[in-house]
């Protein structure tokens, strides 16, 4: 793309062109208005002036006859001024006045004093004898009706045409200048804008080419380009983080799959190496099957997490959290007792959340199973659920196990992170990540704190917060 042509295609430049068009239209309209306002006004003024003169001369004729009129016309025509006079006989022969000829001869049948308005061009000589064209407007009529002398009084419009001509020229100059300035400022603006846009596009292309560390320049002017650049940078930060997470996840999953796959292979191989022995073979197959199941479980967990994180189309509905939580506590309570832990629920009534019923149950079940897995025999697990003052529903699963030290808490919410201390227990390290993903899906949150233990056994508290559904039934 050649930059010179590219500039002409920019939005800013098109806007500038439109602006130039508007300036031009405005100037033309102004021109028309001024033209009519000035010329119209001058015409009206000269009409009044000519009418007054005509009436005055008419009176002179009435009082003093043709001699007096003739005298008056000669006197007035000699005066400096814009008014022009012609007195002619009834056949149109000029007696005296500013012209040698009448520009128009009024009709024979005209009533006395019923003068006609006329516009005409004329030619005179100026003081130096050079011919001069002019334009005039005035009254012409027969005094005394049929057979009377013809009188013409007109005003030379010469000066007013000069004024309007001057105004017209000025306005055209302004128009051309305006259009030129609009186009120039448009080019300037689009050049400035496209430079900023080009900088953003350049960043995007660099990132596409693989330089994930590139960021768009922010000028600190707080304008819309800075805003765009900041949004773009925030997006790039998040993308980079996600890339990193999926990269470490890939490494982690490869690492976690290696051991069970190796065991799987080794069991099958040793069974093949041994002499055929039905009982031992069956045992080896059974254990290989268990390894395969745990691998499949791990894949299922990875897929489930991916689905929660990537599918934006989950249908959220009203979930009776109180009932669902009581059922879950009831479901896990015997299993807890079986392994020497106590599980107790403290669930408020009428907690309703907006959520996906299956994921909600799965998330809470993950928290309970996590607590069961990491508490020691004789340990306690409590599930609390209540409505917070801000209306959200807070579900806490608290235990008195070893807990997680504060620096590690954020880390365990990431995918595949299993603390060294947990390496020996089963699981893919996805349980808490799934809960965190479910919380995000619901516009809620998950955070970890101390549980209900003391000292070394501080315990772990997983706090799962979800937006509530406000209903009349709940409000009552």
């Amino acid at each position: 793309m050649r930059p010179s042509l590219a500039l002409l295609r920019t939005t800013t430049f098109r806007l500038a062109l439109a602006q130039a068009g508007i300036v031009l239209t405005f100037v033309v309209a102004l021109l028309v208005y001024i033209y009519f306002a000035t010329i119209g006004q001058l015409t009206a003024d000269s009409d009044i002036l000519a009418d007054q003169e005509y009436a005055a001369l008419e009176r002179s004729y009435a009082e003093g006859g043709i001699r007096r009129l003739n005298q008056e016309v000669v006197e007035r025509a000699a005066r400096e001024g814009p008014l022009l006079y012609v007195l002619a006989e009834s056949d149109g022969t000029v007696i005296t006045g500013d012209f040698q000829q009448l520009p128009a001869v009024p009709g024979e049948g005209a009533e006395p004093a019923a003068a006609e308005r006329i516009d005409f061009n004329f030619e005179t000589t100026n003081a130096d004898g050079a011919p001069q064209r002019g334009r005039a407007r005035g009254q012409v009529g027969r005094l005394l009706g049929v057979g009377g002398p013809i009188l013409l009084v007109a005003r030379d419009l010469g000066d007013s045409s000069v004024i309007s001509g001057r105004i017209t020229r000025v306005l055209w100059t302004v128009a051309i200048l305006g259009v030129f300035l609009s186009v120039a400022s448009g080019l300037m603006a689009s050049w400035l804008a496209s430079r900023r846009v080009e900088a953003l596009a350049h960043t995007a292309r660099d990132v596409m080419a693989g330089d994930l560390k590139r960021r768009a320049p922010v000028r600190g002017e707080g304008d819309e380009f800075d805003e765009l650049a900041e949004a773009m940078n925030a997006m790039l930060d998040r993308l980079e983080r996600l890339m990193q997470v999926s990269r470490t996840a890939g490494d982690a999953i490869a690492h976690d799959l290696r051991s069970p796959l190796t065991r799987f292979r080794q069991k099958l191989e040793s069974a093949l190496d041994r002499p055929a022995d039905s009982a031992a073979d069956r045992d080896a197959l059974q254990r290989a099957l268990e390894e395969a199941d745990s691998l499949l479980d791990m894949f299922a967990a990875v897929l489930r997490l991916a689905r929660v994180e990537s599918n934006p189309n989950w249908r959220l509905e009203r979930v009776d959290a109180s009932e669902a939580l009581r059922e879950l506590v009831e479901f896990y309570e015997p299993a807890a007792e079986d392994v020497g832990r106590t599980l107790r629920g403290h669930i408020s009534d009428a907690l309703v959340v907006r959520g996906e019923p299956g994921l909600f149950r799965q998330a809470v079940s993950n928290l309970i199973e996590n607590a069961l897995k990491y508490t020691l025999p004789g340990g306690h697990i409590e599930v609390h659920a209540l409505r917070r003052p801000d209306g959200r529903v807070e579900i806490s699963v608290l235990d008195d196990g070893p807990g997680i030290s504060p620096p590690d808490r954020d880390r365990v919410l990431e995918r595949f992170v299993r603390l060294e201390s947990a390496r020996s227990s089963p699981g893919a390290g996805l349980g808490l990540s799934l809960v965190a993903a479910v919380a995000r899906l619901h516009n809620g949150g998950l955070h970890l704190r101390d549980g209900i233990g003391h000292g070394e056994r501080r315990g772990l508290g997983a706090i799962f917060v979800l937006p509530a559904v406000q209903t009349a039934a709940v409000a009552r």
Partner: protein
Amino acid sequence: MRVLLVEDDADMAESLRSSLTADQHEVEIAGDGELGQSMALAGGYDVIVLDRMLPKKLGVSVVKELREQGVSTPVLILSALHDEDHRVEGLNAGANDYLGKPFSTRELLARVRALWHGRDRDVQTRLQVGDLEMDLLARTVKRGGKKLDLQPREFRLLEYLMRNAGQTVTRKMLLENVWDYHFDPQTNVIDVHISRLRSKIDRDFAQSLLHTVRGSGYRLEA
């Protein structure tokens, strides 16, 4: 029992056929949705096992059209997509059960048998297995004439086992049908619930009714 297996993956179909045959079923295979539908229409099958993703016609459409055409043979849908949405969609289309891949062969065999035996179980109001009796209207359970005191959930667990008496039911089937949970607990929760139920119905009696089927699940049988 005659089983129609509609599955386009030939390896998978062969492996399922050998398992089903070993479990005393007669199996016919259709490789795509259209063929499966016309074979099902021709009739003569006790259970239809239908893959969800099929060439020519999707499993869900096949079930839907079969039901519209008046075929009431129980259908089990197999799917790699074990989404709640897809499960509900399959069941709404008229399928009787939905099993997400990967599944164990035992799971599939148990469900195929349960489908066949469960055809008309909903109309019953009294269930009996040996000397164990359940009155679904009065919500009472007696064994040998002696009333047993069960929690509501234990009642539902026992009801499900009694409706499938003589059949192996898997932990997953219990989880889905008794609790309506569609996730896999990593703990032995179901076993603990079963052992509590067992202590109530079997402890004071000479004959055990609730049996553990190793590697598969449980069976209630006199």
